[in-house]
């Protein structure tokens, strides 16, 4: 793997525990600025835990996490968010009794630049026009796909430098999955680095530049995504070929 650009996120030997469950057993990875990277692996491998550790929800016990060179492993989630990291949590954790509009508004909670927030709102509405139609509807009454779009949209409202996405394709129809991945490319083109966790390895590797394969708390393979798509091991285990 050739890391040419400056890395926006760097993990070095990160360990995370849930009480006595050793969920991350020394993760190291480096994501270049402007990239799309993905993390694939079986259920329970520790993919979600990796994202939660980065964002500070499940703090690392050991190891170092650097965002733009600055260590962030000791920061609380809201401080990490303040640095420019947004996470769309697994299972579309939107605010069910807030309207679509209010959900998006919460995404911009830390921002003071009202004019730019308004611009970003327009941008999110242009990415997901259905959200504009449903602006006044309660988040909890949106369909699964709409909720996923809302969750992504909410993360974008903080105008993040790094977007962490946990299984955006979960439970969505193939057509919609395709649309969401296309939108991710669009988001990336606007300059947002994306770190993606996916079960849908094929789609994820297709839009990513770098891929990481995870097994029981460890990263076992790192390569260019295109190379991973050809890798026999990966093909067998995650691409169902």
């Amino acid at each position, binding site marked *: 793997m050739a890391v040419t650009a400056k890395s926006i996120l760097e993990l070095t030997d990160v360990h995370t525990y849930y009480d006595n469950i050793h969920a991350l057993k020394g993760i190291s990875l480096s994501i270049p600025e402007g990239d799309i990277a993905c993390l694939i692996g079986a259920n329970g491998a520790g993919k979600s835990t990796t994202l939660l550790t980065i964002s500070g*929800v499940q703090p690392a016990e050991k190891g170092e996490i650097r965002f733009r060179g600055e260590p962030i492993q000791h920061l*609380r989630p*809201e401080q990490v968010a303040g640095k420019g990291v947004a996470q769309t*949590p697994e299972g579309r954790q939107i605010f069910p009794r*807030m309207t679509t509009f209010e959900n998006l508004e919460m995404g911009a909670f830390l921002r003071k630049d009202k*004019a730019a927030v*308004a611009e970003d*709102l327009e941008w999110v509405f242009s990415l997901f026009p259905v959200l504009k139609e449903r602006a*006044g509807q309660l988040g909890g009454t949106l369909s699964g796909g709409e909720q996923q779009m809302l969750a992504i949209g909410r993360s974008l409202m903080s105008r993040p430098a790094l977007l962490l996405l946990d299984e955006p394709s979960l439970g969505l129809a193939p057509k919609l999955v395709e649309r969401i991945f296309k939108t991710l490319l669009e988001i990336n083109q606007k300059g947002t680095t994306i770190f993606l966790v996916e079960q849908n390895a094929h789609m994820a590797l297709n839009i990513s530049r770098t891929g990481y394969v995870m097994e029981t708390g460890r990263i076992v393979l790192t390569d260019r995504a295109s190379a991973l798509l050809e890798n026999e091991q990966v093909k067998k285990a995650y691409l169902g070929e």
Partner: protein
Amino acid sequence: MVRQELQKLAVYAFFLAILLIPMLGFRSASFEPDRALKIWGVFVGILILNFIVKAVRGGRAAVEAHKEPWTERTRERISRIPRLYTIGGLALLAAVYPLMANNYMIDVGITCLIYVSLGLGLNIVVGLCGLLDLGYIAFYAVGAYTYSLLNLTFGVSFWAALPMGVVLGMVCGCIIGYPTLKMRGDYLAIVTLGFGEIVRLVLNNWDSLTAGPNGLFGMKRPTLYYPSFADGGFSWVAYYLKSLPALYYLILIIVVLTIVGVRRLDNSRIGRAWIAIREDETAAELSGVPTTWNKLLAYALGAAFASVAGAFFAAKLSYTNPNFFLFMESCIVLCIVVLGGVGSIPGIVVAGFVLIAVPEIFRGLENYRMLAFGAIMTIMMVVKPEGLIPASRRKRELHATDPHPHEESDGRDR
């Protein structure tokens, strides 16, 4: 749908009959089924009314499925009455009430207002921030005892003791808030319940400070000062707010200020942060909400409002004892919040009056009064599970060019 509703109606009516008839009808001395029947009739009447409403709503829904449900439309109609008139009318009514009522009625009014302010305070913790608190009455006790002790020991006046009570209440709020930050649901309920009981037991047993179960008495009433030019000199004269109407106006002012305060909080950034925490804590912190700080703040501010109410309560009675602060009181306040419609200020005001005044109206039923109270609660929750006046969707705009996001509501707001 109609059949289902009818079946439900029959079950409720039967259930109520089982509850009411034996307990009211067969008394030890005399058999009085007529009285039980009357009460039963009223309740069944309410149920039938509800059934009719539902049937009409259901029928209409079948024809024009896209139309907003009945409650939503009524609410909209009410909201179309200029708010100034509604609020002005209520204010006028509240202001002239003591002139029309006898002392007993004023006293009930004062109690209602105390509970309204408690409900509004607890609403911050339960309604906005989503933290269950079963020991809320402890902060009311803190306010009452702070004023009592400061006044009896140091002669501190009501107005000077008030801020001290507020600060102490907030400190206590943080004391209960801090260790429970990571708790949710059932655990939080148990810990807060325990906290409430601990406060009461401390008050009950710390004889040297609180006089234990005998309680404290002899506190001065709140005072107003007015200038006097008698004897050619100038001096301030203290006027003690002793009469019931005077105390009524004082608590009315406290309630109005509480409403203003809670409304401002509700519509602020802090209010949004609280609601986000209530809805999904992880998502909230990922959005940049400092959850720890905001939860502590909710406990502290909720406690502050209870503390003010407590100080007023002690000053009004000029007496306080630990048995005013039983678990039952926390329950009633919680009922006011839930019944009113979690997060809804007008709902809580109405529920405060309903829950405190209704048991008074049923005083004639003697021991069965709490039964009637329970029955009313049950019925209300069955008929309007979302509360008397559900919190309306908050209409906030991000910016002027906002594309009217609230037009598409579909009436699904609860």
